[in-house]
């Protein structure tokens, strides 16, 4: 049985009458890249806020490697976070603030300065060391915020929407950094970008309205629901539809409009995907239908939308 890095037990958080987290219980295995998904208001940031100590839980607790997160001293240097909406002191050079964080982590003054400089190097921003936070762009600020989470060698790192609001290039840099650092660490990564989570995470948890709806490995969630979105040159006839629906690899066919349909697949493993695609082309070919486009609907997205009741719209969630 794998070690548990983060254990969340019966966690609830209320803001006046609003229930942001409703009796959440969750175990996050060690040395994984764990995706936390959910629509706006699902409770992801609230959960991260309680873990970091920004927010006080109404009930329940969170433990990191067996230590209650309220015991900051014991966790010092072992846990870090990129908060979604924290701010740096404006008017103060970034390097000085990072040095303070390193010193609070337990580094002495020279080592703290070195660790801060290395952290900025890590995110490709050595040149902004002496700049004030006010002088940095949104993307740069996000990367500086990310680098403070990597000061020292935290065993558990929470990243709350690290790529939100970033251009594709910066977002890719951050994903690459996260992937490079996932070895020997547990990284909990929250995002709205389902493709991003599917791409880099090996476990995922879906939150909705403050509750855990589903969690497991990426394979478990994605193989349970795989989706193809097909656009044809002519309408799908009943005979072709019947043949597709009858196939054991197909869970169902749903027409979107005259020329497009979704085909939900039942796969035991991802290698059956090729068989399903081949079958699709065979059936369409026999009925004289030509596919203009075949998109792999992000199966994680399909599962996400299924759980949260959202509407599938060209690969983006709503």
């Amino acid at each position: 049985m794998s070690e548990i890095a983060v254990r969340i037990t019966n966690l609830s958080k209320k803001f006046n009458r609003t229930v942001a987290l409703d009796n959440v219980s969750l175990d996050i295995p060690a040395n994984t890249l764990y995706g936390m998904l959910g629509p706006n208001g699902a409770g992801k940031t609230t959960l991260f806020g309680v873990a970091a100590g920004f927010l006080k839980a109404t009930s329940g607790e969170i433990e990191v490697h067996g230590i209650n997160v309220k015991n900051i001293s014991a966790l010092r240097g072992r846990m870090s976070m990129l908060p979604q909406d924290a701010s740096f002191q404006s008017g103060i050079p970034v390097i000085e603030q990072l040095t303070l964080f390193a010193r609070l982590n337990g580094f002495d003054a020279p080592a703290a300065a070195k660790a801060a400089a290395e952290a900025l190097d890590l995110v490709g921003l050595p040149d902004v060391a002496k700049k004030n936070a006010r002088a940095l762009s949104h993307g740069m600020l996000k990367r500086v915020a990310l680098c403070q989470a990597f000061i020292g060698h935290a065993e558990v790192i929470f990243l709350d929407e690290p790529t939100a609001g970033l251009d594709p290039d910066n977002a890719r840099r951050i994903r690459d950094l996260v992937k490079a650092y996932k070895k020997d660490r547990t990284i909990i990564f929250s995002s709205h970008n389902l493709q991003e989570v599917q791409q880099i995470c090996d476990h995922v948890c879906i939150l909705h309205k403050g509750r855990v709806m589903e969690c497991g490995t990426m394979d478990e969630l994605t193989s349970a629901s795989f989706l193809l979105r097909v656009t044809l040159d002519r309408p799908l006839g009943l005979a072709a539809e019947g043949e597709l629906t009858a196939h054991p690899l197909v869970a169902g066919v749903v027409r979107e409009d005259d020329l497009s349909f979704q085909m939900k697949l039942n796969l035991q493993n991802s290698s059956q995907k090729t068989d399903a695609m081949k079958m699709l082309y065979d059936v369409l070919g026999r009925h004289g239908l030509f596919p203009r486009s075949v998109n792999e609907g992000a199966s994680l997205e399909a599962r996400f939308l299924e759980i949260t009741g959202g509407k599938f719209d060209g690969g983006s969630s709503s």
Partner: protein
Amino acid sequence: MNSHIGLIAQYSMRFAMRTGGGIIFILVLLTVGFSIASLFISPVESILDKSGIPHADAYKLISSSKEVKSAVSWITGADEAQSNYLITEKPGLLSAILLFLLMFIPYTTCLGAFNQTAGDIGSRGFRYLLLRTERRNIFFGRFVGAVSFTVISSVFTMAVVALYLQFKVGIYSGADIWMWSLQGLVAILALSLPYAALCAWFSAILDSAFGALAICLLVTGFTVLLITLFQSVGTLSLNMQPGDLSWLQRLTPWGWKYELLSGKLQIRSMAYLAMAGFTGLFLWLGLRSFEKRDL
């Protein structure tokens, strides 16, 4: 985690100086201090110069006058013995400066200490610190940082005033000036502590730096006004003696300020204990608020 308190205090002072807030506060305190000193020193110097007799002799004449002692009694509520102590046993000019400084210290302290945590609570500027240290370390570190500015400004003000009195006015011995300046400095700092702690409490409750400033100044000033009003109403309308409601003043640090300069050790000690008590109470209330709230 005492080292964390020290670190946070050190960096908060450094950051305050960098952003200008700390410098402005020091300048304000120095301006107030030197203005008060000048208010007393300039007229006395003028009188001494015009008197045509040695300054020390002229000064003895002034300080032994009934009018001067009555003025001190009226301001401080002190008896004749205490008035004598302040005017004749101690450097009287310095006593007058200290009495007035003590009146202003609560307000100047508020100006320096109002934003210990409120601004950063509102801007979520503590979140990077909360990952690394206990909330109490942040609270006390910010408090120590705020008090440090008051200490620096007060030490500088008193040093300059003492030097001026010793070398320019020349009516007291150096030892008398410096001893009394030191006592006065300790009294000023003792009075500033509970008000800094009060600011720490309000700063922990509120999300806005401006709101914290407004509340700190209002509570500091309004409490004094309210108590004075009660005393006036009691005296005028309820036929009470002026001293009957003096205990109300004791419910605030304000009511103990002049006892910090008392000639009697017992009274002085009680005043310092009261300051410690108020400081402890406000800090406890502030820490409780800071530890319980969402940041």
